[in-house]
């Protein structure tokens, strides 16, 4: 199981208790160091979603996934993310909303339109 900030905090608290009891060991402190190194190795997953409007409830018509360092092109018909909201409910966090300033001139088109970028950390 991977390290989390919460799990490292718990290890530090346990070590403080061990220090108070007088049985803090070098091995216990090394385990905290290892956990901190694991925290540094966490990877960011990215999900690019192009949607029909700026609403998170709009249908998705374009998708690219960066997962565990790999670029993946999901099959849109098989993807569980029919809308941006579906992805949010699955734990994805929006880090970029569509550029509204670029969408104000209706006489021009800009790429695939309303793009959301979402992230997860693993």
């Amino acid at each position, binding site marked *: 199981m991977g390290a989390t900030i919460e799990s490292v905090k718990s290890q530090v608290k346990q070590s403080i208790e061990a220090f108070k009891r007088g049985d803090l060991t070098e091995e216990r402190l090394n385990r905290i160091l290892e956990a901190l190194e694991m925290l540094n190795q966490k990877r960011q997953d990215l999900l690019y979603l*192009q949607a029909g409007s700026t609403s998170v409830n709009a249908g*998705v018509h*374009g998708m*690219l996934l960066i997962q565990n360092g790999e670029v993946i092109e*999901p099959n*849109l018909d098989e993807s569980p993310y029919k809308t941006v909201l579906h992805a949010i409910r699955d734990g994805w966090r929006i880090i970029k909303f569509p550029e509204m300033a670029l969408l104000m001139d209706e006489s021009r*088109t800009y*790429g*695939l339109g309303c793009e959301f970028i979402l992230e997860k950390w693993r």
Partner: protein
Amino acid sequence: MRKTYDCVPTLTDSQVLEFCKKGFLMLKGVVPDEINRRTVEYLDTNTHYEPTEILEEDWFVDNVILNPQAAGAVRSLLGKNFGVPILMSNHRVQCPTSAQGWHRDGGSKHGPELNYLQVFYYPQDCPLEFGPTELLPGSHFLFSLSSYMGHYGSIRGSYHSTAPAGSIFITVYSIWHRRSASAAEGIRNMLKYNYWRTVPPQRDWMVEPDFDFATADYTLGAPTFRQQFGDCYDAAEMLFWLCGKSSEFHLMGGQGWPVPAKFMDKPYGVPS
């Protein structure tokens, strides 16, 4: 040496409009098998990415470049005495390989004008396993820079140009496309070349007596990646340009032409 060619146009009003809407036309299996085999043999010898010398081979020019169905479509879209290709590119790929990034080719201009065509020829079968070119219908009207398309992946409505040997597909130069991912083992050749307009546009293709500009269907079908009716506006403007009537093109707006609807009479706003 630059050459021009003329022949009988083969596309009808409806087919020209369809080309305006989608930005491409697929002609499946129009080149004879013998020519396809000979082309593959030639490309096994001349593996350069620009085997332009093939344009000096009469058997290739007569059956591919001036192929009656392909040339007839080009004649319909570019008018008489169109310029024939002076450059040949081969997208020769060792499969399997990953998908290429979405792009429009360098030099793309966006708008209703059609002064050249980008054409692709498969001399061998190109099923999904051999990574056929993937096109995004209607994207010839979508402005974007290739360098800003790098993060696009799966796009709803894209078209995989799976086709048997001898297929030719004709595209608007600026259409978004890419080589799709391939899973099979082997070499895939695909030749790409351009034809050029030399005369002003006019409606001199196969005119359909009952084709009505007022009631024709200008819709692309979802998704269009544009504002509502934007697909109709774009396709109608391109068709008018091809007819040599761009100065008459006008959009009234609202529910006026060319918005698709069940009108009880001809829509308002049809250019006279």
